[in-house]
């Protein structure tokens, strides 16, 4: 029994961490229409940044600044934001497919730097020397994982709240307008380039937070954690959940992460021995099927974006309930 609970805690922690990244992508793609094919670069920047800043000094690679954990995590987010800002300034003039290719390239470059700049990242060995915060006080056991889960859920809730507020605000309205028709938005005094950059960087900082928490959870990050497949998984989660809908994005994450985990278990358990070597590959194929299938049959996702979310005009005389909170 404790094994099951322990596993559920583990599962929920990872799913909640990934949900944060999916929410970041939802701001970029769902609300703003930015096709970020390099989610994993922001995620990785957050993870590497956090672990390098927060770890103990190492002989083998750069860093080990031993910063207090909140500062390290913040540093990871800032690093993800700075990277996104540079990438954004260079690529956000590109449209959909080209932006996707460019950002995908950035993510591949990121992975290669992580793998080859051994002095900086520890190379394929990953970043060592990071200790999970409060480990001395809480130990390494179930209690620690439970408390960590609570912390992650609080982070997820804060990100969700932040994005919900953003969505119903004039800022969210502006994002949707720019997504729908940039020329018209510009003719009404909005500056699409600046707004898109803001949304791109903000989404990437959120992904950086997700990566930072992920690195913290495992107290380790290596190039294996920033492979392109993660970008596709995160996209699948958003597409299945429903781009433009924050609650849907979280639901999609739990669903896809559950399906991914389950398929891995089922393949290991039931697939013929000779097929088991290919378990990972089969899962990749399944993720591809899920994305293609959803796009063909239900492109709006399980929980479609709620159109016209802010400011109904019918009850003219009533103050807006939402507006008074």
């Amino acid at each position: 029994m404790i094994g099951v609970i322990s596993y559920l805690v583990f599962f929920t922690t990872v799913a909640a961490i990934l949900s944060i990244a999916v929410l970041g992508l939802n701001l970029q793609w769902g609300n703003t229409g930015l096709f970020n094919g390099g989610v994993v670069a922001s995620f990785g920047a957050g993870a590497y940044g956090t672990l390098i800043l927060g770890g103990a000094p190492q002989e083998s690679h750069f860093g080990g600044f031993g910063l207090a954990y909140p500062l390290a995590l913040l540093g990871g987010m800032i690093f993800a934001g700075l990277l996104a800002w540079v990438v954004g300034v260079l690529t956000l003039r590109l449209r959909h497919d080209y932006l996707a290719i460019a950002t995908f390239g950035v993510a591949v470059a990121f992975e290669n730097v992580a793998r080859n700049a051994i002095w900086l990242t520890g190379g394929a060995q990953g970043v060592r020397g990071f200790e999970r915060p409060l480990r001395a006080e809480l130990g390494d056991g179930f209690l620690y994982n439970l408390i960590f889960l609570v912390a992650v859920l609080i982070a997820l809730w804060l990100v969700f709240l932040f994005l919900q507020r953003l969505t119903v605000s004039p800022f969210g309205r502006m994002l949707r307008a720019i997504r729908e028709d940039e020329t018209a938005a510009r003719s009404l005094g909005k500056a699409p380039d600046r707004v898109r950059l803001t949304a791109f960087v903000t989404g990437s900082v959120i992904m950086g937070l997700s990566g930072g928490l992920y690195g913290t959870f495992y107290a380790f990050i290596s190039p294996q954690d920033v492979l392109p497949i993660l970008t596709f998984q995160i996209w699948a989660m958003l597409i299945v959940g429903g781009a433009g809908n924050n609650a849907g994005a979280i639901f999609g994450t739990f669903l896809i992460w559950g399906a991914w985990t389950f398929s891995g278990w089922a393949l290991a358990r039931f697939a013929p021995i000779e097929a088991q070597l290919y378990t990972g590959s089969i899962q990749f194929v399944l993720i591809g099927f899920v994305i293609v299938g959803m796009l063909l049959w239900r492109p709006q996702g399980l929980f479609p974006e709620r159109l016209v979310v802010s400011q109904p005009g019918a009850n003219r005389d009533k103050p807006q309930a939402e507006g008074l909170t």
Partner: protein
Amino acid sequence: MGQAVAEPILTTHALSKSFGALKAVDGVSLSIRKGSITGLIGPNGAGKSTLFNLVTGEIVPGEGRVELLGEDITTLSPDRRFAKGLGRTFQIPRPFKRMSVLENVMLAPLDQSGESLWGSVLGRRNMWRQEAAIRERALEILDFVTLGPLADHPAGKISGGQMKLLELARVLMGNPELILLDEPAAGVNPALTETLIEKIEELNRGGTTFLIIEHDMDFVMRHCDPVIALAEGRVVFEGSAVEAQANTVLLDAYLGAPLDA
């Protein structure tokens, strides 16, 4: 020009734009009188839309300058020009289809505190107060253009003529001095055209200047004064509507058919 001289709101100086070998706009110098409803006519391909886009900043001129109220705006982006008091509509309406009619209009005001990332998340009290005021004004303007009852409809679901009224409503939220209308009567049923004209004239009496591209000669002759005609990228006529009507060369050569007005 046979008009009484009034302060120009918009002037262009030797404005030119080429697309490859084609000179779409060729040295156009114009002066739009403040408080007028100026009609811009000319056959297809005359350069009307290019001139519009040069004035609104959608495209950058090869040569020449654009001035709004004496200020050089040649290098300003369209959003900055809107902030300076220059509003426009599109030949084919461009509503934000998946937003409500009301949201379309509420988007337009400048300097909304909730349009900044932090203002929208942290400065909420201020933001909602502003929103309430914007919403009220948006509903007023929607009533003015007769779209009040459609406030909650998705903007993609209203008729083409209503979309043109919606575009006018959006632009009005910015309190523009000068509004450029690109074929406001095209593809609109006559009843809505009448409404639109009424609103244009009412706004004009309130001091708003209009520059209107229109193919419907009846519309131009009845409601625009003065009239400017373009052909092959150049100004070929500039004068009052009465003069334009009397100018048989203009009518025959550039408009194809004489008027039976």
